[in-house]
């Protein structure tokens, strides 16, 4: 890794070859600092989750509750990513600009990353809390799984070498159908098992400790900053890719013209 170039401020010593900018550096450092604080809050400040039942038994998630601070923000980032993909795809079909296409691609990739993490951390949390790695009776779990699968397919289409406009249009339709599909899957799975293990809206329905609530909100905030940082970098990577493709086309065009025996400059003739 050539770290020297990125550590510099970027002004005065040439333009370093990275996708970083002032904005991403601020976001990056904010993420790191926020994460450090989150770890401290999650492990040192938040008390374990216990309740005493009327029979006098001690029940609750105990320290497993600390997994919530990665699981819940992951889920929120996943849905944010897919939501953004949906909106960007709509915008692409409306305005047909590469910008929206790249935005849809970048956010879908981040959505799949966090969707996968949601499933994994949910599983790890479910094992001690529900005594199972996977619970088919839970609507949110199954819906998230299907959604991640749909967007894995979406990314597979994006990876196919094909005409840029063709791929962009087809991907956009897949994203729209995928988003509509989430609603159908959610409803059908809900009816499929008319019961749910998931805590119905944890934040409102059950008594939740103030410390836990604050740390959860804080983890959302850190997650959002991380999301913005990742999205900027990923979007710029996609943009660079498109620039390189454009340069290659120009090169091939020049070659094609040379083949035809005309000079490169517009209007020029041999």
């Amino acid at each position: 890794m050539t770290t020297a170039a990125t550590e510099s401020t970027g002004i005065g010593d040439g333009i370093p070859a990275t996708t970083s900018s002032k904005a991403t550096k601020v976001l990056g450092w904010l993420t790191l600092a926020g994460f450090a604080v989150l770890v401290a809050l999650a492990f040192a400040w938040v008390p374990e989750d216990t309740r005493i039942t009327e029979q006098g038994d001690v029940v609750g998630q105990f320290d497993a509750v600390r997994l919530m601070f990665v699981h819940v923000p992951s889920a929120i980032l996943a849905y944010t990513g897919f939501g953004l993909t949906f909106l960007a795809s709509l915008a692409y079909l409306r305005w047909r600009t590469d910008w929206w296409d790249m935005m849809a691609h970048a956010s879908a990739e981040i959505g799949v990353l966090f969707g996968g993490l949601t499933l994994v951390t949910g599983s790890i949390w479910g094992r001690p809390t529900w005594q199972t790695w996977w619970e088919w009776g839970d609507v949110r779990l199954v819906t998230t799984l299907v959604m991640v699968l749909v967007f894995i397919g979406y990314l597979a289409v994006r990876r196919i070498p094909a005409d840029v406009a063709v791929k962009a249009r087809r991907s956009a339709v897949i994203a729209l159908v995928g988003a509509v599909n989430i609603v159908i899957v959610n409803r059908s799975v809900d009816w499929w098992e008319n019961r749910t293990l998931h805590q119905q809206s944890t934040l409102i329905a059950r008594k939740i400790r103030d410390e836990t609530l604050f740390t959860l909100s804080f983890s959302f905030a850190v997650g959002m900053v991380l999301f913005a940082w990742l999205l900027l970098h990923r979007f710029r990577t996609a943009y660079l890719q498109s620039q390189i493709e454009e340069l290659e086309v120009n090169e091939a065009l020049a070659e094609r013209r040379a083949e035809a025996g005309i000079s490169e400059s517009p209007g020029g003739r041999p």
Partner: protein
Amino acid sequence: MFRDAWLIVGKDLRIEMRSRVGLNQIVPFAVTVLVLFAFALDTDQEALRTYAPGLFWVTVLLAALLAIGRSFAVDLADGAADRLLLSGIDPIAVFGGKAVAIAVQLVVLEVLLGAGVVLLFDVTVHRYGLLVCAGLAAAAGVATAGTLYGALVAGLGVRETLLPVLLLPVVAPVLIGATRAFQDAFGVAGAEGWAWLGLLAGFAAIYGVFGALSYGALLEEA
């Protein structure tokens, strides 16, 4: 527009009747899958009877992938897909025509497989009306979603592997709904079969509308 759609239906079904790919390859494949399920469940007649609805619909979905892929492969084989674009037929008619043709094939497949399930898995039918309606609605849902996704991957080169990845998660609600309705029809579980029929019909309607609306944009390119 309806005339054009019927033209496409007639063309697709006539090709399938002539080539016998469905009868000679897809149906034997589906029956083989049923037999494999029986092997997997270890000759447990009771388990087979209980799970027959789910096994039946998984088999139908797998066979449907082949039928959908075939429907688009026929058009792409010798440039007929370009001709369809040049013909000036309304894209909605092309979508409708292909979906109806696929649905008809699926219904035929369901009838044959249904007979297979009754014979091999020893199930008895309690509600014929529900069985027929659910079969038709599920076929319509798979056909509309399948036609939309078939067009999405057509001409992308790797459609044989891409279609299952994209389509199967999308038709998961059909599997859930149709399985529940069949459980009720076979009397193996007290599900509310007619309510599930509503889900199947809704699915078919949503994908029918979505496919018809977006087909033009999908075909517009080359």
